[in-house]
């Protein structure tokens, strides 16, 4: 393009290095963004409908199938919602081991995103394979961390993809002490690797792109919220998960098979950066010290910092899992008995990509009458569109098409969108024209 061209249509027909299928259409007329659409066209998957008429005990295994990367998030949110409705109190062992299980998913998902999806963008690489040519040790370290996350998931869930270990009331299985000891040692050994990853991600030069937005995440009084907490926003808002509907509204856009979501009529951010923006003070002291040493600052309005936020959370999840497994003993009972109760179940946890909210209406026999699942990527959709608009203006609309396309993809990948979960996703189309 030439500097005289003020209008352009940019189409990224398939966005790569995201989970699932989507596209971006950008139309620039007389140097202004006339249209910007994040189009998720992966077909709807109807999981909420599949759940209708199913027994509550089947829910964890069905919802695990929503995502191959974050099945534990779906399972945990579902079982906790149902347990709350049924008045089930699980044992401290179950509480702790569920948090460990969830830490495994954070480590696996974040390591995958940093090394295979996002980092290549910052080194002029088209793929992790190209990144491995210039930073083999970094990629090897990333794969080791990812594998460690998978090992935690497999320890409690029998397998890392679509695990089967969770049930309403507890776990189906308790790992042997000998297995736990071996894995815990590996986690301890990996902590220096995760610290090095935090230093590496925080040393990568990022575009200066601070934006105002509301961060939404679970918040807990005494811990860094993963599986439990109140829904909080950076404007001071704090509610229980059952109040979600009164403040967050889902809406449809004709170009997307995923629902959009608004908080008090405005876009909002969920995910690792939102969590750190709200809960950085809940991190252990050594991690807060490392954050300060590396020059990272939270709260932060630059979404490009999300990769470093994921690295911080990998370190936290490793430490937390190792801590909780420190006094591991095989329990007398892996689960408590459950008696269903009719009513409405609400649950919210922090999936690797952000807040995940579930609502189930259940009858006396424990059959699901209807279900609603609001995944993090749908919640981030409106924020991604808003971010793209602001970020593109900051970047300069007169940049060459290829540079615009790459910048858009980079922005979108900061959110680690999981289109399959949201469809509910990326191709980019830019159109420039004169009026």
């Amino acid at each position: 393009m030439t500097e005289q061209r003020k209008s352009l249509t940019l189409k990224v027909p398939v966005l790569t290095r995201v989970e699932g299928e989507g596209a971006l259409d950008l139309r620039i007329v007389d140097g202004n963004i006339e249209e910007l659409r994040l189009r998720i066209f992966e077909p709807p998957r109807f999981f909420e409908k599949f759940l209708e008429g199913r027994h509550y005990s089947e829910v964890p295994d069905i919802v695990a199938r929503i995502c191959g990367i974050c099945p534990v998030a779906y399972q945990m949110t579902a079982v906790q919602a149902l347990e709350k409705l049924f008045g089930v109190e699980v044992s401290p062992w179950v509480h702790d081991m569920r948090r460990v299980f969830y830490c495994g998913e954070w480590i696996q998902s974040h390591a995958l995103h940093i090394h295979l999806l996002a980092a290549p963008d910052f080194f002029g690489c088209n793929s992790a394979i190209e990144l491995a040519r210039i930073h083999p040790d970094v990629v090897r370290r990333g794969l080791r961390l990812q594998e460690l996350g998978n090992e935690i998931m497999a320890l409690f869930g029998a397998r890392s993809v679509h695990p089967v270990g969770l049930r309403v009331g507890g776990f189906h299985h308790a790992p042997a002490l000998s297995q736990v000891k071996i894995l815990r040692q590996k986690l301890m050994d990996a902590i220096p690797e995760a610290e090095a990853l935090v230093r590496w991600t925080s040393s990568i030069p990022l575009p200066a792109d601070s934006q105002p937005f509301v961060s939404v995440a679970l918040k807990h009084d005494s811990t860094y919220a993963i599986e439990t907490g109140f829904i909080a926003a950076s404007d001071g808002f704090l509610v229980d998960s059952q109040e979600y509907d009164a403040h967050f509204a889902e809406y449809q856009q004709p170009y997307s098979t995923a629902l959009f979501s608004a908080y008090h009529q405005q876009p909002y951010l969920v995910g690792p950066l939102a969590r750190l923006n709200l809960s950085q003070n809940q991190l252990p002291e050594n991690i807060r010290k490392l954050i300060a040493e590396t020059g990272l600052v939270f709260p932060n309005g630059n979404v490009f910092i999300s990769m470093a936020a994921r690295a911080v959370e990998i370190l936290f999840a490793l430490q937390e899992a190792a801590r909780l497994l420190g006094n591991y003993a095989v329990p007398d009972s892996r689960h408590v008995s459950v008696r269903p109760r009719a009513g409405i179940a609400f649950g919210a946890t922090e999936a690797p990509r952000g807040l995940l909210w579930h609502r189930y209406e259940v009858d006396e026999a424990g059959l699901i009458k209807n279900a609603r699942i609001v995944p993090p990527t749908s919640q981030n959709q409106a924020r991604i569109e808003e971010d793209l608009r602001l970020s593109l203006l900051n970047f300069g609309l007169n940049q060459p098409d290829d540079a615009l396309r790459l910048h858009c993809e980079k922005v979108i990948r900061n959110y680690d969108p999981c289109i399959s979960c949201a469809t509910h996703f990326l191709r980019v189309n830019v159109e420039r024209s004169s009026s």
Partner: protein
Amino acid sequence: MKKPRIIGIGSPSGDDQAGWLVVDTMKSRLPPEVELIQLDRPGSALIPLLENTSHVILIDAMQGGGQPGDIHHFINDEWENYGQGLSSHGLGVFDALMLAKELDCLPETLDLYGIEIGSALPGDPASEAIISAAEQLAERITQTWQHVLN
């Protein structure tokens, strides 16, 4: 020579079960200490399975324009020329192998077998051509590596 690690990649969808069927057939014919692994879209998790062994036999479904049931054999890095058309698990397995190569994680010997498949609809059984090809390939691998497998 050490025993090879044998990995069958597949899914429960029609002919895409090819890699799993080969491993299933071999399970009954080989001593239990032979590492027989069945995977579904392993992605980068395939890489650690290529390490700490000198020989990996990898079996996957492929669509290369041949007839369902045709068996292709790629030794060491011959698969690279095949690009993304090698496997029905497409980018996953190919990318994982490319990444493993860049990271110097490939075993000394990598035998990659591709079975040409037809339809791969969820819930469908594998076609006769695939069942027969899986049987043939299981027999071929068992015979070829008999001196180290048994």
